């Protein structure tokens, strides 16, 4: 176990900058998730930490030591690859014991160390199988088994669940989380799936286009996104974004482009003609007879909650109600907005006000 630090890390492939100055502090034993859209450089960052890509500028520390020039095998980290990268010519047991074999552990000790790891992951009956003979979920477990057997300083996961079906993904999410609670090994986990990030992480790093947009606990990012990108990326269904500006007469009222007035919790200190975005999460709305009228477009009952798409002015808003409400397309709903949960952004810079 060890803390990990990225200090102003940069990476270019040829002349193309991919990672543009990243600073992340990861505490000992923390479960950190790097999340962001495909192509934003998450895997590249992880591979730099693993030593599979060299570092163009900046420093990466593992356990307080600079590892920029250290080859992968000396970093004492284990990685679970997206395609698992199991050795096809080795049995499950051999796959799991390979790193121990490479580090000169005796056959007897290897067997003794593989056994408990296999038990944790429910692989005991599969130890003699070859990867070809396993299902996707079992391969995923073997890949994790290979990582935990060596008890490394840091675990790295690169989109480990993206090849699994939805149900298995939920199950493995829980298993990985449990595993971390049990082993308490520092973990860096990459995903493009914000739900995975929200449900598993101690700390989320939102990346976009080679830079870090925001770092924080899952609910911190949800409640106080620092900019439009994070606001739109975190949360499902996504936050509603309504364009407009402040009312000239009352700085605690937001006017949409069509002139509909939306309430704010308090007067906002911003230029009157500044283009703004009014951010409203789907669940921060109640039905109230004196509220703002909007027309129902579609309803999507899921059982536990009801999702309703309404049209307000020209824009479609997604609303979510935890009770079952019985509305039909074409009907008018009257909405009361929970003003304390409204987010306001500068449209130009995307920054939260």
């Amino acid at each position, binding site marked *: 176990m060890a803390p990990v630090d990225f200090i102003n890390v940069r990476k270019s492939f040829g002349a193309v900058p991919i990672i543009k100055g990243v600073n992340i502090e990861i505490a000992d034993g923390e479960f950190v998730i790097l999340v962001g859209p495909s192509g934003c450089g998450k895997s590249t960052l992880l591979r730099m930490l693993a030593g599979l890509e060299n570092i163009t500028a900046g420093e990466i520390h593992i356990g307080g030591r600079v590892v920029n020039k250290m080859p*992968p095998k000396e970093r004492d980290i284990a*990685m679970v690859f997206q395609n698992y990268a199991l050795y096809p010519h080795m049995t499950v047991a051999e796959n799991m014991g*390979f790193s121990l074999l490479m580090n000169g552990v005796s056959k007897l000790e290897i067997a003794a160390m593989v056994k408990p790891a296999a038990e944790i992951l429910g692989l005991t009956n599969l130890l003699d199988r070859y990867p070809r003979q396993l299902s996707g979920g079992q391969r995923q477990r073997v890949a994790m088994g290979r990582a935990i057997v060596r008890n490394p300083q840091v675990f790295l996961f690169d989109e480990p669940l993206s090849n699994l079906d939805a149900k298995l993904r939920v199950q493995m999410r829980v298993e990985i989380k449990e595993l971390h609670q049990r082993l308490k090994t520092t973990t860096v986990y990459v995903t493009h799936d914000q739900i995975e990030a929200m449900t598993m992480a101690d700390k989320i790093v939102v990346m976009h286009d080679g830079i870090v947009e925001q770092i924080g606990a899952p609910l911190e990012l949800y409640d106080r996104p620092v900019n439009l990108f994070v606001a739109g990326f975190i949360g499902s269904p996504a936050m509603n974004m309504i364009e407009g500006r402040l009312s000239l007469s009352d700085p605690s009222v937001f006017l949409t482009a069509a002139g509909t007035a939306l309430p704010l919790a308090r007067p906002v200190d911003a230029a009157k003609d500044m283009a703004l975005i009014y951010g409203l999460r789907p669940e921060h709305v109640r039905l109230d007879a004196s509220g703002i009228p909007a027309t129902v477009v579609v309803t999507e009952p899921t059982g536990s909650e009801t999702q309703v798409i309404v049209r307000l002015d020209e824009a479609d808003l997604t609303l979510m109600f935890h009770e079952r409400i019985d509305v039909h397309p074409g009907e008018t709903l009257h909405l009361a907005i929970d003003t304390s949960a409204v987010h306001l952004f500068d449209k130009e810079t995307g920054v939260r006000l």
Partner: protein
Amino acid sequence: MSSPSSPGPPSRSGALLLRFNNSRNALGFVFMLPAAIFLLGFLTYPLGLGVWLGFTDTRIGRAGDFIGLQNYIYLMDDEVFWLSVFNTVIYTLVASILKFALGLWLALILNEKLPFKSFFRAIVLLPWVVPTVLSALAFWWIYDAQFSILSWSLMKLGLIQQPINFLGDPFNARVSVIAANVWRGIPFVAISLLAGLQTIPVSLQEAASLDGATPWKRFRYVTLPMLTPIIAVVMTFSVLFTFTDFQLIYVLTKGGPVNATHLMATLSFQRGIPGGQLGEGAAIAVAMIPFLLASILFSFFGLQRRKWQQGGKD
């Protein structure tokens, strides 16, 4: 065979045609006929004729009679024949091992990130692309007793005093023809193994290096085992090509000096065509078959698909 269930009685010939059309076996037979004739005509017939000739005393210009195993009995006591068997085995063994080692080494180098990669890959193929007779002629010059460029260079460097007698001395001649064969055979091995290397996912190498494997251990525990199926196929072919080699030897030494480089193929030709003893030449060629079969069986049983390659459940 199912009979057609068409309504109304069709005409006699129509019914026959329909019956035929509906029979998968008959149709399949018709479709396979061209291929079968082709195979019989061009593969089996010459082979059969060769085997038959081996049991006769046919000479050029005279149809022979069946003489049973007499050709073989004669060869049993023929020292030159046994020498050619010995030569062929040595030639195949040494050349194949060298081709494998050098070819694998070259493939590994070409699989690295190199500048001008495709240029080097093209260069490597050259010895294979050049017609054998042409490269054999080139080697003939390289090995020439007086004008050899090799001897000349070594003399200039002061390493030797007089030209090396490459093809005149039995031992030198053997080494020389093996070297030429290796030079010619390396591209096939190297390029095939390179193709094999490229099917190994990069992430496996990365996983192994994270698992603490040194480059040598990565080769030993990941690359080599994953390459064995392709090695088996490539080396089987390489052994077959080498064992039946003819052109190189015939151009370079014609089997000399004193039969030191006679292979079974060259001896078979020499006895059969210039020597006129078609039956005996055929018998020598037939004697190669057991060796070839043995090497095929060896690769089939010894190196057949590993358990890890087979899908499904155990």
